């Protein structure tokens, strides 16, 4: 058994590790998506604060604000239920990296404009948790990225409805 395989086996904890990771990750996305959906206008306004969308194309920002909460809720639910587990883990990892980069860039801008240290910055990132310290938020995202990596790398299908949507050809 190679070292890498041995590490994965230990991390798996007989399949319970990935199951717990998948429930926490999926649950977080369902919770955050539901919070955003509670006030879609506030989420739209917060997205605008990032200045990432061209003002000449409001469709892009509106679509993101309309789409993101729902996709978080649906994909989070599927992940908990154990459907397309690795595909959704990959999708969440990509989303988390994009979100974290956006938060990092905005916080860097605020820190430099207000001449304060990076970890003193606090704002509503639009994540669904209200105003939050940026270092705490990025730390939280790193933990979620680690959970996503566990789910993505694991082959365990413990309590999965349909772990692989696209199955290996026989």
């Amino acid at each position, binding site marked *: 058994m190679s070292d890498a395989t041995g590490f994965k086996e230990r991390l798996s904890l007989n399949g319970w590790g990935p199951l717990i990771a998948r429930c926490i990750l999926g649950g977080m996305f369902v919770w955050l998506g539901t919070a955003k*959906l509670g006030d*879609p206008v506030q989420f739209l306004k917060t997205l605008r604060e990032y200045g990432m969308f061209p003002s000449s194309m*409001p469709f892009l920002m509106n679509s993101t604000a309309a*789409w993101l909460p729902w996709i978080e809720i*649906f994909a989070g639910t599927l992940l908990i239920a154990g459907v*397309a587990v*690795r595909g959704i883990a*990959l*999708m969440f990892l990509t989303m988390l990296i994009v979100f974290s980069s956006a938060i990092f860039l905005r916080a860097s801008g605020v820190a430099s404009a207000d001449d304060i240290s990076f970890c003193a910055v606090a704002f509503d990132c639009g994540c669904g948790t209200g105003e939050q310290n940026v270092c705490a938020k990025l730390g939280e995202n790193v933990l979620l990225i680690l959970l996503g990596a566990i789910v993505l790398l694991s082959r365990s299908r413990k309590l999965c409805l349909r772990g692989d949507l696209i199955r290996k050809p026989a």
Partner: protein
Amino acid sequence: MREWKRVIAEALVVFAVLTVIAFLANAQHDDGLDVTRDYFAAQRKPVAKKPVEDADPREEPEDPENATEPKKPEENSPVDPAEAEIRARLEANGLKAAEHDQVVEWFQDPAYQAGAYLFVDARNERTFAEGHIPGALQLDHFYLDRGIEQVVQAAQSAAVIVVYCNGGDCTDSESVALDLVDQGISPDQIHVYLGGIKAWRAADLPIEEGTR
């Protein structure tokens, strides 16, 4: 390698299917967003000239002849850059900012009860219900269809329309003011109360709770 291709394909399939479902859900949701609407058009209207404090000496107004000087803030009052920017935009759009004392005077005028002054609360339904200026009607720029008819009808008999939101950097009152202009109401009638509900509450003025 083939295994990873399968994982990526799975992610793309899930993403595509859920994207379609997400847009359908948004369309069916009561508070769903209209993805085609330009919600922040009012904040992008040209500002003739930046306030003095923020002015960049390298920038010249496009047409100095027609440039309007933003209203100077009251003496000894701190200059809020966000508020100064809103004032300049209002002027560029032919709208007026209403000072707190003027708004209170209109509110206390007996003609207010007769409908000569119309107060429009541009915040959302929840915050309106938590407390608003007595007699105000609610109109949310993001859900115009929920109150525009009532407001336009009341505006027909009003000489002055005061639109407010939270105050500070809140721009919803500015957006609603322009929505009313789009509905054919004269900009001369419309005044945006920049102090908003925060200034109103701070002055310990009456507050009404609930919806109308």
